[in-house]
């Protein structure tokens, strides 16, 4: 096969993103859903860094945006896990299908 190019990285990122989408749609454990969301964040980061390498290598803007993505993902994981712990304290379970009290 020819050398590794931008398309290879973007395809890898698309595959990981779709695996994350599948996990987010089907997992019952709330932490399982969070892990799938982390996979999606990482796929997006791979895309950003691949673009920084191949399309704009002179300025590493993609890498800076990837750093911001990592920071925001860490903040989001923290708050989401705190909420999961609170739900567990109250209801002794974290099955996302059953935490549906706000549905009409």
């Amino acid at each position: 096969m020819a050398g590794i190019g931008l398309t290879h990285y973007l395809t890898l990122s698309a595959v990981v993103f779709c695996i994350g989408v599948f996990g987010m749609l089907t997992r019952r454990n709330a932490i399982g859903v969070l892990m799938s969301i982390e996979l999606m964040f990482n796929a997006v980061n791979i895309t950003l860094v691949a673009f920084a390498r191949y399309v704009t290598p002179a300025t590493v803007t993609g890498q800076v945006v990837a750093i911001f993505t990592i920071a925001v993902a860490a903040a989001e994981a923290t708050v989401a896990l705190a909420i999961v712990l609170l739900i567990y304290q109250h209801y002794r379970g974290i099955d996302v299908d059953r935490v549906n009290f706000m549905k009409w």
Partner: protein
Amino acid sequence: MDTFSLAFYALAFLIIAAAIFVVTSKNIFHSAIYLILALFGVAGIYVLLQAPFLAAAQVLIYVGAVSMLMIFAIMLTARIADDSIRHTNEQVGTGLLVSLGLLAVIVYSLWQTPFPISAAPMPEGAGGTIGRLLLTQFVLPFEIVSVLLLGALIGAVVIAQKDKVRGVSEPPNTPLPKPAEKVAG
């Protein structure tokens, strides 16, 4: 096949295999370990993309902190009878269809797009350029992200406190309601 391609394919295989195990493993702790493997693979991809600072930051933040946080949460919320509970909901078929369709659409549009590849060299030095950019061109997002992290820190501490600290005598400890009856059709 030269070593660069070999490294890329090995890392891609590792990431995809680990990601599949993350979303299909029956044991949530095993899912967390596979997630750590996938994150390491992504750090390797960053090294291939000539972003060594980002690779180190990925390991430091994701593997060292976020994964550890998830493992702590798993340990604190594990139930004894967890293995007998189904770990996926009824939407597995639809979910598979949706994600495969999404994959097909994305990959098709990717392979059709001529991206403007530039052959300019990447700047030397690990982290120096990123640091300069963070403090000149991206200083506003940088400051906002620090406020965001501070808010997340305080918010997480406040949210996860036990009820008795806030004045309620005992947590309700009501069991979760059973899922609603499946509507036929």
